[in-house]
């Protein structure tokens, strides 16, 4: 089973966590066009390479965090630490109802 590097709990079994998906930034719903909103909802890069993604540690610390995984080999790199910079974005605790967070 895949060991997922949770910043708070350390490496945990994949079954303890949920992959939210590719980390993407959410456009402003007040100004976004129909295409932009459709793209935010549905379109994905789906790379066969390093991907920055959002995980939810559902059976552990119950926080959302970002990790970098190679989708061709399932390796992780730069395991996140509490409050660390992760990949292209910064690890943040998202507010309730917005699990995707914003890239900063």
């Amino acid at each position, binding site marked *: *089973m*895949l060991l997922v590097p949770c910043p708070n709990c350390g490496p945990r079994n*994949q*079954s303890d966590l*949920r*992959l939210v*998906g*590719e980390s993407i930034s959410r456009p402003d719903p007040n100004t976004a066009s*129909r*295409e932009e909103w*459709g*793209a935010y*909802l*549905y*379109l*994905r*890069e*789906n*790379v*066969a390479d390093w991907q920055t993604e959002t995980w939810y540690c559902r059976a552990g610390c119950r926080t959302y965090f970002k990790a970098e995984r190679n*989708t*061709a*080999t*399932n390796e992780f790199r730069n395991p996140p630490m509490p409050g660390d910079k992760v990949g292209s974005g910064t690890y943040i605790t998202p507010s309730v109802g917005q699990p995707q967070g914003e890239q900063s």
Partner: protein
Amino acid sequence: MTAARDLLKRGNKPARYSAATLAKHGLTGEIWPRVWREPEWKSTYDVVIIGGGVHGLATAYYLATNHGITNVAVVDKGYLGGGGSGRNTAIVRSNYLTPEGVAFYDRSLTLYNSMAADLNINVMFSERGHMTLAHTDGALRTMHWRAEVNKLQGIDSSVIGPEDVKKNAPSLDISSHPRYPILGALFHPPGGIIRHDAVVWGYARGADHHGVDMHQKTEVLDILVEGGEGPEGKGRGGKVKGVRTSRGDIHAPIVVNCTAGWGSLISNMAGVKLPLTTHPLEAAVTEPVKVFLPTVVVSGSLHVYVSQTDRGELVFGASVDPLNTYSMRGSLAFTEELAGHILELMPGIGKMRLLRQWAGLCDMTPDYSPIMGFTPVEGHFTDVGWGTYGFKAGPVSGETMAECIATQRTPKLIAPFNLERFSTGELVGEKGAAAVGH
């Protein structure tokens, strides 16, 4: 090129398979001729189809037979039928949830029914009936919904009670003891299983005899597009010029993406972003035993489907892994979970041993319906988003994609599956019938 010589000798006519030829070869020990050519490399075609699975080969076959377009190349980075076409659990059915889906998959079932005669190959279609078990009131309600949608379109599909379930598959536990007791099932007699390799070979052989060139071990590295608004002239408004492969460039005004699990990677080469995520789906097969399971059994709540092959092996399939990845390695966790679920359904098979397990890639769309037809790039057609239901749709996809390419109009059957629906919001929600229920 012995194969090419063989083909010339028999005047490009398909060598028919029959009981007589089988007896002749059996008695004389004569070697069977190569079934398809290894074509010479050509740098110009009318149509290039990327992906040599059921979808790509069926598209090529119907382009040649229905529309007379034979200057077609099928390119595949591996071998024919090495992707999802050879990794699925070979179940076919048409009891879907949306009217659009039902009409589409029913046409596929019709083509599967006459395939052995059409392609002159034994596809071993076994119309043994398909049962989708309901373990909760909610599931039972969806079954009734599906049955009514199906009946309206003239499809044999009805909800049956636990006693009839037991009659159809005596090994199932219909008592109230399990965690998920069986409350009923959606029974679909026209569903069944088919030999998936023979389907691939049948289409490949048929396409080859009509002059289609199939280039195996030829990886597409890039799609050549001009005039688009994206980087390198790709993307919306562009026009396809051909493909760059590991063996050289091919010039073609039409390029079709039939690569399923790898669909995003190919589509990105043309600058067309798709709403796909690629997930592996794992399956497993047991040792062969005497036939005891006469129908296909599916359980949505337990995330499992099972059928028994003519050889007597039980074939198990699961739902897609929750992780998007292109890696096809199996896992012990999957096997344990699958075995637990199977034993809950059929406690009597506890001593059977698993022979092997494998995984295939599924390109999941948000609404569990495919993406077919035109793209914003002129000449680039897409036939992806096949998730967990690609094999059963193979023949109809080939037929409709060929019509779309040849007539430059979207056939009615695939109009709901256009790419624009993800910005207009007109999704074709098929999750209730396609998420696990194969």
